[in-house]
């Protein structure tokens, strides 16, 4: 099947303007602007079944239709923060197929009536941003971006903006704060961005991959896109495969592909021919899906089906864990990541991730007790349901599922005899 998103793997030099144009480039955008009404464009996207590719999987067309038409101007923002550990698809898209991404962003802008769009990239992507700036300039010169496009009254300018090294700025409202020049900390929701977004105005924010699908959907039709993938999740997904596989990398596959196919057919199987112990389908924010039975690997990957395994597909950053990995090591890594990246705004995440990191470090370095494992689970559950944004919630996923589903790993890491945290003088003397 020919590529839909990673088309540069089929067509060399697709990141050059001429090549892109020769391969149907910008026809969808021009058609939309000159021949379609904005809400007609939204309807096509709605009917295609496209869901957000950033991790939440929210129906894209529906999100666009929520934009408040009583408050202007409107903005569209592309979330190119890509900071989820195990996710590296958007970088390839922007470097390999930048025009398709930008075209998708442009079509979305037209659909919601925005004349200004932003691509927010993580600070570490300064080279990618420079590349996008070049491409935007080329598009402007070619009359595809700018004022009064294609002989209509519609104007669109796209700007790139760099973050400064914070994972939290991938959270959409923290991203907007950062884009506005403030500290990247999430806002209270409701209101949500389609009602109150960038500079207080209605804003649509989508992931890079989501936008990159849009030109192909407009060009080939909603029905075409819906026919690919599954009933629950239409289209293709770029799976970022990593972990203990032989061939980690990006693999564009239709929804419904099984884990087995992804890992063995494309990913070259597990290193050292070991067996899969667990899968984290959503990067570090995942629950740990236990591969207790080989049959689990035959689960088709789409949003609804993966949930039945006790985890969310999320951004489809599939991290494969084999039996050489002890879960206390893994949880130590994820917790330290979240502790470092917590923005600090709300108490449970700020204090909780710090506390969890101390406990898991003790456990992992052999200084922990079984009491510490209980404590870690308890603290993680105390954080859950209390945080201002998803970061705090996700910081607990690997902890809770790790301890509950792989208790032996943790038992092995700690001392057998549970020690109380505090022993009084009298007790100590009595024991002596």
């Amino acid at each position, binding site marked *: 099947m020919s590529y839909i998103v990673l088309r540069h793997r089929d067509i060399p030099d697709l990141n050059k303007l001429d090549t892109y144009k020769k391969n149907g480039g910008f026809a969808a955008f021009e058609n939309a602007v000159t021949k379609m009404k904005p809400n007609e464009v939204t309807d096509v996207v709605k009917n295609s079944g496209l869901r957000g590719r950033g991790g939440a999987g929210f129906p894209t067309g529906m999100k666009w239709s929520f934009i408040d038409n009583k408050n202007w101007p409107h903005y569209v923002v592309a979330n190119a923060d890509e900071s989820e550990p195990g996710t590296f698809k958007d970088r390839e898209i922007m470097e390999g197929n930048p025009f398709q991404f930008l075209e998708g962003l442009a079509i979305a802008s037209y659909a919601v009536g925005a004349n200004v769009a932003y691509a927010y990239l993580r600070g570490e992507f300064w080279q990618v941003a420079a590349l996008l700036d070049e491409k935007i300039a080329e598009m402007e010169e070619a009359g595809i971006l700018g004022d009064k496009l294609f002989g209509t009254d519609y104007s669109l300018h796209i700007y790139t903006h760099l973050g400064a090294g914070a994972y939290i700025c991938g959270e959409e409202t923290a991203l907007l704060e950062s884009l506005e020049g403030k*500290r990247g900390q999430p806002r209270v929701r409701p209101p949500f961005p389609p009602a109150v977004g960038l500079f207080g105005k209605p804003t649509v924010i989508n992931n890079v991959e989501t936008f990159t699908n849009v030109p192909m959907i407009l060009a080939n039709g909603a029905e075409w896109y819906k026919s690919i993938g599954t009933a629950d999740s239409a289209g293709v997904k770029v799976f970022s495969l990593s972990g203990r596989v032989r061939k980690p990398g990006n693999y564009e596959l239709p929804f419904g592909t099984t884990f087995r196919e992804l890992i063995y057919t494309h990913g070259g199987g597990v290193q050292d021919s070991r067996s899969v112990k667990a899968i984290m389908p959503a990067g570090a924010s995942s629950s740990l899906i236990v591969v207790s039975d080989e049959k689990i690997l035959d689960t088709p990957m789409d949003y609804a089906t993966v949930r039945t395994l006790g985890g969310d597909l999320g951004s489809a950053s599939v991290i494969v864990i084999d039996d050489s990995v002890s879960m206390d090591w893994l949880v130590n890594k994820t917790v330290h990541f979240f502790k470092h990246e917590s923005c*600090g705004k709300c108490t449970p995440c*700020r*204090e909780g991730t*710090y506390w969890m990191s101390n406990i898991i470090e003790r456990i992992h370095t052999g200084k922990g007790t079984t009491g510490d494992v209980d404590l870690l689970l308890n603290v993680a559950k105390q954080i859950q349901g209390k945080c201002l944004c998803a970061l705090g919630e996700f910081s607990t996923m690997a902890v809770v599922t790790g301890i509950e589903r792989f208790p032996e790993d943790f038992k092995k890491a700690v001392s057998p005899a549970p020690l109380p945290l505090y022993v009084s003088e009298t007790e100590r003397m009595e024991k002596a």
Partner: protein
Amino acid sequence: MTKLITLTIDGIQVTAPEGTGVADAAKMAGIDIPVFCHHPKLEPVGMCRMCLVEIGRPMRDRATGQIVMENGAPKIQFLPKLETACTNKVEEGLVVLSQTEKAKAGQKGTVEFLLTSHPLDCPICDKGGECPLQNLTIAHGPGKSRFLFDEKFHLGKRVPLGELIVLDQERCIQCARCIRFQDEIAGDAVLGFDDRSRSMKIITSSDPGFDSVFSGNTTDICPVGALTTVDFRFEARPWELGATASICTQCPVGCNITLNTRREARASGDFVVKRVMPRQNEEVNEIWICDKGRFAHHYTDSKKRLTSPLARKGKNEKLAHASWNEATKLAADHFLAAKENFVVLASGRLANEDLFNLKSLADQVGGQAYLYSHIGGGELTTQVGVGAGTNFAGMGAGTTIVVVASDLYQEAPIWYLRVKQAAERGATLIVLNPRETKLDRYASFGVRYAYGDEVKTVNDLDKQSKLGDAFTKAENAVILFGSDGLGLDGTSSLASACAGLLQNAGHVGKPNNGLIGVWERANDQGAWEMGFQVAEDLTEILKGKAVYIVGADPVGDDPKLAQTLEGAKFVAVQDVIETATTEIADVILPAQSFTEREGTLTSGERRVQRFYSAVPPTGESKSDFAITSQLADHMGIDLEGKSVSAVFDILADSVKSFEGLNYAKISEVKPQWPIVGRGDMYYGGTTYENTMGVGAHLTAAKGGETVSTSQVHATREAAPLPKEKELLAVPVTKLYDRGTTVMMSANLLRERIGGPSITLHPESAKSLGVEAGQLVNISFDGVSGDVVVKLDDTISIGVALVPRSMGLAIREPVLAEVHSQR
């Protein structure tokens, strides 16, 4: 009319206006939902997660949109997660549960999380005893700690934010109340967060640090001991403190304060004032005070307090201790003999009762009573000033506020807050000034006029223009006039023009309409109401007279007046503290400071408020009104001297605007929102509840009564133009100046007070060949002094801003010469 919403909180039906947050609605109904980051005067942020409650909403059928009913009542759908009560607004039919196991577990969890990093500082932390974290830990927190002590995260313990506030970064619970107060209310965004995650800490972004005159308020609303004042650090435990209601005497706003007192060994077991705290009066200062009011109280227990009557036996004799009887008799004899040459020179630092007795004395002797002030126009504020029902908090869309010739931020900081907030609520703010001030940011209209064009500019408000219409066509209008670049003559003309305008546009005689003078001192308005007069040139008034100077330091302020008084026939000085004037006095009468006695003050908004005595009198000092009474007694004049409320009653009978007022009436209290006070200080902060009186307004002029604007020049000539190498020196007011009461607190405020300086535009400095920080000599009108140069590119070229009360006696714009010092 705001819609009222009915909801249920913990089974109790609550009704609140639309837009109210659930936590506030609960408070209104007497239900305490614990909070840290939420404050009723700040926008909710949902950061601390302490107010987690279960919230259920009436279910709506997805298809029909109708409410689903169950057993005759709407079916309530609870979300799986707890929600923050502060960020959720009231909705019809909402069900809030704050006491369920789940909610309590959430609240307990939050306290536990906060305590993991919080240091065990209670034994040495000033906040202990009035600490929201302590209180809510007892109420909601876990009994034992599960966190290992050695793993506690450490941050800076004594980080100075400026020289007035100390930050303990470890105690901070990252609630951001201080940052949000500075951003939203004070308008000085000088605090912020640095770093993220567990390392998130408060820093100040200004130089000098925490550069805001409202900084002390953050220590009231900080829920822990992270922000403490240098003034009160390690000074006392809150439970040791007595609390006395008082009124700040530093400016005409009349902020309600509480004096906290304690017995001290250094005072031989007597009570001393340990700190000044705000007291709630939503119609005057809400729950805030400025730093000057908070920190400049130390003069009351300075070693320079006058403790006993002193008198000179002869003209060239030294001052020697005298009895009250001797001292007052000596003065009385001279005053009686002087008859029409008897002059009372009193300042607005005095209480209404003191001023009334002084005026009565002057009248009965046949002498003159002068108010020591550089601002005129008060007789107009007594006629078209604001009256009952006036409240800045009630001003919004439909009201126009004009601020002319005043840098409110420096001259009356809490009025700056009130006006700013009114503008943010939709009031039309018109700022007319000869230079940029902080209030400009909130103005709908601004006019920059040349020095001398004040009256002309104000008269433009009468014209048919956008600016004029904004004033004349407004429902309500208030004009605040100050003395930026103006002396007595100028302010009188200005007030006259303003009064005429208000009269013509019908903006008099009703609430939120009228003229307000941004006076020098707390009770200038009271003096005006009682008929004190002012004079541009006091040298003529005082030459060769028998002078009774009360609460003023003309010798220290102006060398010309010093010279005049040296040649006066007789000078009796009544004051609280040693000044340059007491040095040349023939008789010194020691007065009690406001902390040692009772009385009333009239604010610039014409509100009479009571203050109460907190500490015993210093030495042999007496209340000013009592001294005057004793003095009068020797002259056969009967003035009440024993009961301060009796003086007030006589005053109310004699002065028309005080009609109907008495101590009982001005001590009345009323329920105020938000609820603050000792019982639940986690909600509103450690501001004191007002249980001793919110004060009462004087009567205002009725609409239609013509104002007699028979004032000095209705139009003024333009200010003199400087020649080359000359500058136009203009007087401006600085909050922290070298006034007698401020200087005694210089230990704390030294940096803020600074030394004598002038401010020039960089271009002016360049053409004079001087640089910032350079010492120069400035001379004008017989006055000369060495000052440090400061630069400001927002002022006019050719102008030198000369702050008053900083060592240079400047009254009006005057041509000056500046020479650099080698």
